Structure formats: C-alpha cells, structure tokens
C-alpha cells in the first residue's frame, strides 16, 4: 500500500531520473546480469556488453516505462496493459526475475542518489517496483 506522500516521492524521483534513463537502465541491467547470470538467457538476441547501444537503448526503455507508471500509480493496470500482453505472450520471462531486476534497480538508485536514497524513499521504491512487477505478470495465467 502506497501513501500519497510515497506516491509523490516516487513520481518526483523518476521525473528527476528521466534525463539519465539510459544510464540508469543500462547500469541496472548490467548489475542484474553480473549478480544473476541466469537472467542473461533472455538476451541472447542483444549485445549486452557494457556501453553497447543495445544495452543503453533497452535500459532506457525499461526506465521510461517505470517512470511513466510512476506518473499515476493508481492507473498502473491501464498504463501497463500493452506491456502486460508483451511479457505474457511474447517475452514470457519467468516473473521471479522481476524481483532480481527490481533489486538491481534499487542498487543503481543507491549508487546514483547516495544519501538522498533515504530509507523512506527506498521503502516506497521497493513497494512501487513490487507493484509494477505484479501488474506486469497479471496476464501470465
């Protein structure tokens, strides 16, 4: 459950990160690939080496989708409908992996924001990313 204050905080953080979406997204993906090598199996069609254009483009896509969801969290199911279909029927990524990317994303945020990534912000962000992942997996079965 997200309070109004938490929703505002989440929206504000992602608005700030939108200009560096590619950098944050690529960083999160790299961390996930390094810590959880099984996740690389979903990316055999891309060049996922550091600084590759594929990695930056893909990272940017992911962060922008997360940022868009943050604009109006109460409408997540509507906003994410196309991505739900994509993940359920085409990508079919095991939803357990969503947690791994979420954790990697939180670490990226911690590196980027340092002390500004307060415990309260961290809690709010963890809750938001969990909700995001849950909505993304809704059409799986």
């Amino acid at each position, binding site marked *: 459950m997200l309070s109004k204050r938490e929703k505002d905080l989440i929206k504000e953080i992602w608005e700030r990160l939108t200009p560096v979406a590619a950098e944050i997204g690529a960083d999160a993906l790299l961390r996930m690939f*390094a*810590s959880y090598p099984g996740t690389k199996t979903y990316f055999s069609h891309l060049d996922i080496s550091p600084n590759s254009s594929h990695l930056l483009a893909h990272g940017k896509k992911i962060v922008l989708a997360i940022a868009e969801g943050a604009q109006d969290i109460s409408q997540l199911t509507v906003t994410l409908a196309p991505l739900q279909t994509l993940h359920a029927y085409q990508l079919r990524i095991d939803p357990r992996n969503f947690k791994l990317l979420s954790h990697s994303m*939180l670490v990226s945020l*911690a*590196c980027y924001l340092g002390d500004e990534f307060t*415990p309260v912000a961290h*809690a709010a962000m*963890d809750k938001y990313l969990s909700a995001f992942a849950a909505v993304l997996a809704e059409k799986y079965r």
Partner: protein
Amino acid sequence: MVAWTDFERVTIKDIFSKIDYEVVGPAAISRCLIVYPWTQRYFAGFGNLYNAAAITSNPKVAAHGKVVMQGLEKAVKNMDNIKATFTELSTLHSEKLQVDPDNFMLLGDCLAIVVAAQLGKDFSPEVHAAFQKFLAVVVSSLRRQYY
C-alpha cells in the same frame, strides 16, 4: 566448498576495509526494519520502532547493527570456511531466536544498498556481483542448521 576467484577475494576484503562498520551496520538494520516492517517481529524488546525516524535513532537497533557487522567480519576473515564459522550462529538463529531464514536475504539486500550508497561509482556491477555472492554464501551458511 565455495570457489572464490582472486577478484572476488580481493574485492570482498577491499569493500570491508572501506566501509565504516559503525555506520553501515546500523544503517542496514534500520533499513531492513523500515523497508520490511514484518522483520520487526524479532525485535520486540528494542523499544520504539514506531516510524522511520524512531528506528533510525534507536540505540538498540544501532548496537545490533554493529553486532551483525562483527559477525560478517568473521566470514571475511574465513572466506574458505564460512559454513563452519557460522555453525553456532545458525543454531542460535534457528533454535533460540527462531528467525524465518527467508528474512536473511532481506537484510542482505539492504546491506548491498547501504554499501552501494556509500561507495557510489566504485560499487561497479562486478564488485556488486562479488558482494551478492558473498551474501549468498553467508545466508546459506546461516540456513544450514535449520531443521
């Protein structure tokens, strides 16, 4: 036996030499209690855990953070036998403290985030991965004595 690469050994020792136990330990425990509030069930005797501010300034929480760091340091000093190093601690957490072992990684994740915030760019994906592996070994060792 865990196989550590030279990079991983050096990296783990390096991380622990750079972080301030007095800051990182308390910060990680507080974060765990704030981000995953159900973990507070194990700290009923700690007094005021009512909100984030109370948790962050709670002296018992801070003291416990340092205890955790001292435990982790033992693992850093015995990287080739973390399993044996934590046998007693595992029994303690299982039989006396009765902590659900699924919670161990929650603290581990918070520790990774606190270290990341401290080290910034130095906490590269490769360094981070070595740290996650270390945490996984610690957690696995703490789980061993649960029956």
